């Protein structure tokens, strides 16, 4: 976060510590090195082909948009990337390791976080606890110490609380810290979900329609947060979005899917000008 704060160690107040977010990752190779390569991915359910021979790369530090009409296989693609679906054919190379399949929690452990199309928050918990859950991966203290709430357990809990407070501050949701998420309006729930994903300090953040169902103001806020996340923490982001305006504004590159196939790839401007895309997608379903 405010990087200047890290240097000012002169304050003796033990509680007054700014969060460690913003341990910035190198950005120099922005858009050059592939963080993730998908090769020839095919996925089908029963007889239905969700994805057919898709290959693409996600580059370190970029914001990549995946667009396409409904049922084009966008969500399936994200589900394959973080191990929720296992493709029948094809491999995924992430951080240089090639794999065919892995469990979702392994993907999470390796730095892939995501949000969901239909918000998947933990309804019975507060905003704070939801985001704290995103830190679970980083917590180590065993359950005996936790039960006693003693020494290391307490220290760990507080350390992560501080981190999470940084995220709450970043997303400007201080006022709803203690509110059970079920009571929040839709736009704020989306924001909390983003917070939960950020809490795991992901290298790759997958956003499934982060702006669906939002009004213009909320969309603007969300765009700002996505850009800031990318900018401040160097987090690589792959997102699915329907609002073409948003896609064109914030993404570095765009991939277009249609009926499970990749039909185009390029900068927003290139994609916008692509006739195949216009025929398949823009001309049909958008304005």
């Amino acid at each position: 976060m405010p990087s200047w704060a890290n240097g000012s160690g002169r304050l003796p107040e033990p509680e007054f510590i700014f969060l460690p977010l913003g341990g910035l990752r190198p950005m120099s190779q922005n858009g050059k090195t592939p963080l993730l390569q998908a090769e020839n991915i095919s996925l089908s359910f029963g007889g239905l082909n969700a994805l057919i021979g898709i290959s693409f790369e996600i580059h370190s530090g970029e914001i990549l948009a995946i667009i396409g009409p409904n049922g084009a296989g966008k969500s399936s693609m994200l589900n394959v990337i973080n191990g929720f679906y296992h493709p029948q054919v094809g491999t995924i190379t992430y951080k240089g390791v090639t794999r065919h399949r892995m469990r979702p929690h392994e993907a999470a452990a390796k730095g892939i976080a995501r949000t969901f199309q239909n918000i998947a928050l933990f309804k019975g918990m507060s905003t704070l606890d939801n985001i704290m859950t995103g830190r679970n991966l980083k917590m180590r203290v065993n359950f005996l110490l936790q039960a006693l709430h003693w020494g290391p357990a307490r220290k760990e809990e507080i350390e992560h609380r501080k981190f999470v407070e940084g995220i709450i501050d970043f997303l400007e949701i201080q006022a709803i810290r203690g509110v059970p998420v079920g009571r929040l309006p839709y736009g704020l729930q989306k924001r909390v979900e983003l917070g939960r994903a950020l809490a795991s300090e992901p290298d790759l953040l997958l956003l499934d329609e982060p702006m669906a169902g939002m009004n213009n103001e909320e969309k603007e806020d969300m765009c700002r947060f996505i850009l800031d996340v990318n900018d401040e923490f160097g987090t690589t982001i792959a997102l699915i979005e329907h609002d073409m305006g948003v896609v064109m504004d914030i993404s570095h590159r765009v991939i277009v899917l249609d009926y499970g196939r990749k039909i185009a790839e390029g900068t927003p401007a290139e994609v916008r000008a692509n006739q195949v895309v216009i025929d398949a997608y823009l001309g049909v379903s958008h304005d």
Partner: protein
Amino acid sequence: MDLLYKIFINPFVEMIDGPIFFAEVIISGVLVGAMYSMVALGFVLIFKASGVFNFAQGALVLFAALTLVGLLELGFNLWVALVFTMGVMVLLAFLVERFMLRPLVNQEPIILFMATIGLNFALEGAGQIAWGSDVKKLDVGIPNQTFEIGGILLNSFDLWAAASGAILVVVLALFFHKTFIGRALRAVADDHQAAQSVGIPLKTIWVIVWSVAGLVALVAGIMWGSKSGVQFSLSLIALKALPVLILGGFTSVPGAIVGGLIIGVGEKVAEIYWGPLVGGAIENWFAYILALAFLLFRPQGLFGEVIIERV
């Protein structure tokens, strides 16, 4: 070595040595299984249509049987008593819908489950207050004679029971597939909202389903009651039906039938050939362990649908 021999060799040797006895064991298992199936059927009906795990199904069986016996004891004609009991079961369905399901609509499944446990208590108490808690003999005139076919001993009563179970299944199948209400029920089972949009009031559906489940309970009650007397333990056969459900799947009518048969046979065979090894009385849990072992390979049960999870 000796133990291994006893477990893995001896029982099979016994089976082959006494084929007739083995056949009798199998058949008695099948017949018991048919009874399990009938109770399980009540569960499936309700679960399918309303998503309620009806723990009170056993109590329904007891309640139906007690009512019938009570009416018979009062001197009613069998048919009058039967019709009257059916009426009571339908009335009960109305009450359940009005005072339990309707106020609890949209609650978590576990809450509804708990409510049926409450219902279970209330029904057990009510049935026994109304009709007393002594063991009662129920005789609806099903012949109970033992005879022999090909050296295998059979009981006509058991055959009757199996037959009525089969008839019940056929009737239900027809009901589900051929009648409007049946189709409506299936629609509800698939999708509550879609069903409502077709114009079927959910409340009506629930009353019908619970009535049908009550009638199935009545049949089961008659069968079990005629065989071993009407008493409190009838309520406990619900516990027997539960492993049947896991095995067959909560939503599958054929699953309930096949599951019941598997459990019935498995239980009998295990009790007779392996039971003595561990001191007997393994019927109580064997069905559960069997179902559990099975589940590890097929979590959705025998006939349940494979669930594709989406996010």
